């Protein structure tokens, strides 16, 4: 019975398609190794550090083992003790977390294969790295923000210390030298202490769970009342969809990749981007020069991040049925796309201005402003179109991933990687941005000539119960 229960519990955490993701992650690691990415010491170190950070830091900040609505409705109202439930949860999430973490990182341990002792240190370290986020999240459940932020900062500095050659850093075991032992021992000690504290802190009254539902959270209160009265319907649709940004965030935490749509005001985001671009300018101007590869990488990631963030969230909470009574479907979709493209252009405007200035100063290549003026809005539109097409698979299924991961989600990964590749291409060959024309035509085609797709599509979504 226990095994059956555990199997079912694990199945409620992640589905069969999770195995596809693990296989693809593993395949990516092998390909990276095969193509010689690991020839440089820093590449696997960056990769491992990045993965560890996205598992550990959000887990600490969010706190608690993630649960879904079904857990809340039926598991917590069952006569089962927390003391029994939490270890089973822990085990299920540890399996989920370890599988994806190890498939992503074990390949890099082949770098240590020359010395069996260092390899053993590496394996222990990877196991600790996959367990620590879960234990840490248990400890952090219900703790105050100041404590959480302090610990997140310490964790971040700890991970960063590996990159500055400190052997106590969690990634330092990869250097294969005598420091591997120290790195592994520090990691092991922290993991053991954290896990012990986590289990000691469990008692009958405490519920170290974090409920996670797929609901759009309004970050802003939108206290300034918007006026729509007297507006033409087209203008009202553009105004509303331009003003609110549905910002998708995905964080890997305790074996789940959580997806959340945060709804914020475009003006607030604009202010944040102004501050961020000013910081980017200061760093670029005073510390880093064009020959430095890091600014090149950072800029491309900023552009990439903006595209993904500005384009993938909207449709996930879009009530497309509104269009059925308000105006023809295709007009509604077209207006939605236009407002999102304008929004992406508006939000990336501070970067456009800053990068133009840096080009004049000879710090950045001339291609960079093109990224923010053309590539980001165009790709935001293209990605938005794609997100519309895959909507039937997206809605309702996105609350806790990969517990109910849908393989169609994975479709976005190659598209997203292609966008990153294209951004690099534009930075190296400025005129490559002209290649965006076919993509832009796709958006125009989709928005102006796809009347029947939207009509059939929306009715199909309604029939399937998605809108």
């Amino acid at each position, binding site marked *: 019975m226990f095994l059956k229960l555990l199997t079912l519990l694990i199945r409620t955490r992640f589905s069969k398609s999770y195995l596809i993701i693990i296989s693809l992650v593993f395949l990516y690691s092998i390909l990276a190794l095969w193509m010689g990415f690991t020839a440089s010491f820093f590449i696997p170190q960056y990769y491992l550090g990045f993965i560890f950070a996205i598992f550990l830091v959000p887990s600490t900040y969010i706190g608690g083992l993630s649960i879904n609505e079904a857990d*809340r409705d039926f598991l917590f109202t069952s006569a089962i003790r927390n003391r029994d439930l939490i270890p089973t949860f822990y085990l299920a999430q540890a399996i989920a977390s370890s599988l994806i973490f190890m498939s992503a990182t074990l390949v890099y341990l082949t770098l240590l294969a020359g010395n069996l002792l260092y390899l053993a240190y590496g394996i222990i370290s990877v196991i600790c790295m996959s367990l620590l986020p879960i234990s840490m999240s248990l400890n952090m459940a219900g703790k105050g923000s100041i404590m959480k932020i302090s610990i997140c900062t310490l964790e971040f500095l700890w991970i960063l210390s590996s990159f500055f050659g400190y052997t106590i850093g969690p990634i330092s075991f990869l250097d294969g030298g005598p420091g591997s032992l120290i790195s592994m021992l520090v990691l092991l000690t922290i993991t053991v202490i954290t896990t012990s504290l986590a289990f000691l802190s469990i008692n009958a009254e405490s519920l170290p769970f974090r409920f996670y539902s797929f609901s759009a959270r309004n970050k802003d209160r939108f206290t300034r009342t918007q006026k729509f009265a007297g507006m033409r319907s087209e203008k009202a649709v553009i105004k509303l969809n331009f003003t609110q940004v549905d910002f998708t965030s995905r964080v890997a935490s305790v074996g789940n990749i959580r997806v959340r749509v945060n709804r914020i005001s475009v003006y607030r985001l604009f202010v944040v981007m102004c501050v961020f671009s000013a910081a980017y300018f200061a760093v670029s101007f005073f510390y880093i020069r064009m020959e430095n590869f890091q600014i090149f990488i950072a800029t491309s990631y900023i552009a990439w991040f903006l595209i993904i963030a500005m384009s993938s969230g909207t449709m996930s909470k879009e009530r497309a049925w509104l269009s059925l009574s308000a105006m023809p479907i295709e007009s509604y979709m077209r207006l939605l796309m236009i407002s999102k493209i304008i929004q992406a252009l508006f939000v990336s405007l501070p970067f456009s201005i800053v990068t133009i200035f840096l080009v004049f100063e000879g710090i950045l290549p001339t291609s960079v402003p093109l990224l923010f003026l053309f590539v980001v809005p165009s790709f935001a539109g293209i990605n938005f179109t794609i997100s519309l097409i895959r909507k039937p698979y997206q809605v309702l299924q996105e609350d806790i991933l990969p517990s109910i991961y849908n393989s169609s989600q994975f479709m976005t990964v190659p598209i997203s990687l292609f966008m990153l590749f294209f951004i690099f291409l534009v930075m190296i060959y400025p005129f490559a941005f002209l290649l965006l024309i076919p993509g832009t035509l796709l958006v125009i085609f989709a928005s102006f000539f796809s009347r029947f797709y939207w009509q059939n599509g929306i009715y199909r979504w309604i029939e399937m119960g998605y809108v």
Partner: protein
Amino acid sequence: MEFSDTELATEAQIPLSFRNVTKSYGKNIAVNGLNIEIKNGEKVALLGENGAGKSTTLKIISGLMRPDAGSVRIYGHLPSSISAKKHIGYLPEDPSPYLNLSVRENLEYIGAIRQARNLESRIDDLIYNLQLKNYEKQKPLSLSRGNRQKLCLALSIIHEPSFCVMDEPLNYLDIPTQEIIFQYFENMNSSFIISTHILSIARRLTERIIIISSGAKIWDGKLAELEEMGKNGKTMENVLSELMKNVS
């Protein structure tokens, strides 16, 4: 709050003792000094306008939420205790089953956790009675809202609870299915507290009605008494509206 031995002994016998309970969300008081007692085998409907505090009351009873003040006991136990949960069958409003598991797997999983007796035959019985036979291998996302609600109903009573706490149990169900549920509930020996907006459901399933408004009790009595009040050309809906209006 201190209780005498006699009070404690009485509490241990009854499904629900809910005394002077208060619960607030920030400045908003959801439950305001509410008192409810339910005896063995008693079937009670909790009525009230939107935002009256019905769902909060049921969440407190089922142990999902702790009150700010007051005392709640299920057969003499704290609602969050294992002993209390063994007795309770809770159906929330808009419940969600596990989307990854099929109908039967959902029942097996929750049934196993709740240690339901003769689980296989219990599942067969529920699937047959709630007419879910054709869907037992399907996953909840492919079910209609009504069938999903039936599944959740089955999940909430799979362990044959002696005290059912149900928030709008007949949501999304068509009339023939409602009739099936009525008959099923009528044959159950459990005590009930059901929150609903629909008077006909209260009339059919329960014999006692509690009306709450702004988290406080404004009327508590037998259904027959309420019907008596509505005899002078007034419907029961009129009587209820007036009762609620007088308070607000």
